[in-house]
């Protein structure tokens, strides 16, 4: 029994020693792999955007896909977004896979499909963040700017990042941008941030490194306007002639709620 205890103690000691020996250099290597120059630029960007009362931007989203016959195709969606903190938002998306307008004026939200000329509208919480939570949790609705307005974005972006570096400078849509690479298990993301005082994102690429093929989703942002038109009309939804109001089908419900 004593011999067994001794052997166990020895084994434990060796394991602990190994763990200590291993953890020191590994931890150091990980933090060394995250270049503070890259994280500084990312943080500067999130702070700059977070400080804006209102803005508008055009985005071009490209989703790489593989067809059933194993051909690579790209699907595109253009969006135009206007945000006026704390309680107004409008987005319009047009493209291969979606045509939709979303309008929120601090009191109600409206979702409109111009193709079918149908819309739904609901009372909504008083702030954009409340709206995003409500839309997602109660209506199953994803509002296309959630990322723009949530808290703690920098910390969330940096979560599990084990490699970060500055690739260099390039020009996107005529704007000189710093090119950053961040990596975490299964996902790489590249961010291009405008050089100079206005640290706006120029482009964003997310790559699934956990699957063969390394499919990416690319977003190019252009026409940033930090003093956009935020008159009431922008955030007011007026159903077009002949548009039909339809209900939301809430998550878990078996029938549509009354419109």
């Amino acid at each position, binding site marked *: 029994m004593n011999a067994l205890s001794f052997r166990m103690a020895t084994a434990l000691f060796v394991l602990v020693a190994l763990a200590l020996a291993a953890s020191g250099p590994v931890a150091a290597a990980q933090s060394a792999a995250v270049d503070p120059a890259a994280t500084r630029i990312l943080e500067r960007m999130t702070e700059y955007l*977070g400080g804006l009362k209102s803005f508008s931007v055009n985005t071009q989203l490209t989703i790489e896909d593989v067809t059933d016959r194993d051909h690579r195709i790209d699907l595109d969606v253009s969006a135009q977004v206007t945000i006026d903190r704390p309680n107004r938002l409008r987005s319009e998306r047009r493209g291969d896979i979606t045509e939709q307008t979303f309008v929120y004026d601090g009191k109600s939200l409206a979702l409109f499909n111009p193709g079918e000329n149908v819309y*739904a509208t609901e009372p909504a919480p008083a702030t954009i*963040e409340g709206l995003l939570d409500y839309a997602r*949790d109660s209506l*199953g609705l994803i509002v296309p700017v959630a990322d723009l307005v949530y*808290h703690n974005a920098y910390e969330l972006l940096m979560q599990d990042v084990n490699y970060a570096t500055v690739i260099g400078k390039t020009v996107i849509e005529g704007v000189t941008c710093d090119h950053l690479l961040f990596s975490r298990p299964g996902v790489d993301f590249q961010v291009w941030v405008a050089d100079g005082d206005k640290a706006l994102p120029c482009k964003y690429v997310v790559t699934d490194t956990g699957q063969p093929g390394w499919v990416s989703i690319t977003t190019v942002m252009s026409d940033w306007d930090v003093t956009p038109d935020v008159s009431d009309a922008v955030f007011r939804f007026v159903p077009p002639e002949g548009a039909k109001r339809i209900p939301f*089908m809430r998550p878990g419900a078996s*029938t549509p709620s009354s419109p």
Partner: protein
Amino acid sequence: MKQILNILLFAPLAALMFVVDIQVPGEGQPPSFQLVSEAQAIAGVRRRSFRRGVVIGSAASASSAQASTAAPTQQQAAPAQPQPAPTQPGALPIGTVVSTLPAGCAPMTIGNVEYQHCGVDYYRSAFQGNNLVYVTSQP
């Protein structure tokens, strides 16, 4: 077309992706916040891989479940929903959700509600999340 339908499932998620996040002054963060851009977009990619027969991790099962409630494909009943008996022989169960209507439907307004009358079924239009769907209903 099949592939397009697959993508439709996650289009609303992917559309989110287009900008990196912003910090706004304030305290705390929404409890259920996810890093939407990466996590959901990539989950969508993985789901598609799954449909193509590639082995996938646990992330995909969650996203598949989400997708099936977000936008069931044609003639596929939404899962985990109570489904009363059909109103007529041969009719689909009430609450069946489809993303496209069958052929040969006629619009019909009953009690101030517009239906699409397709054979023995009556469909109402509704938004299920960001997706326009048609739900079998009892007029």
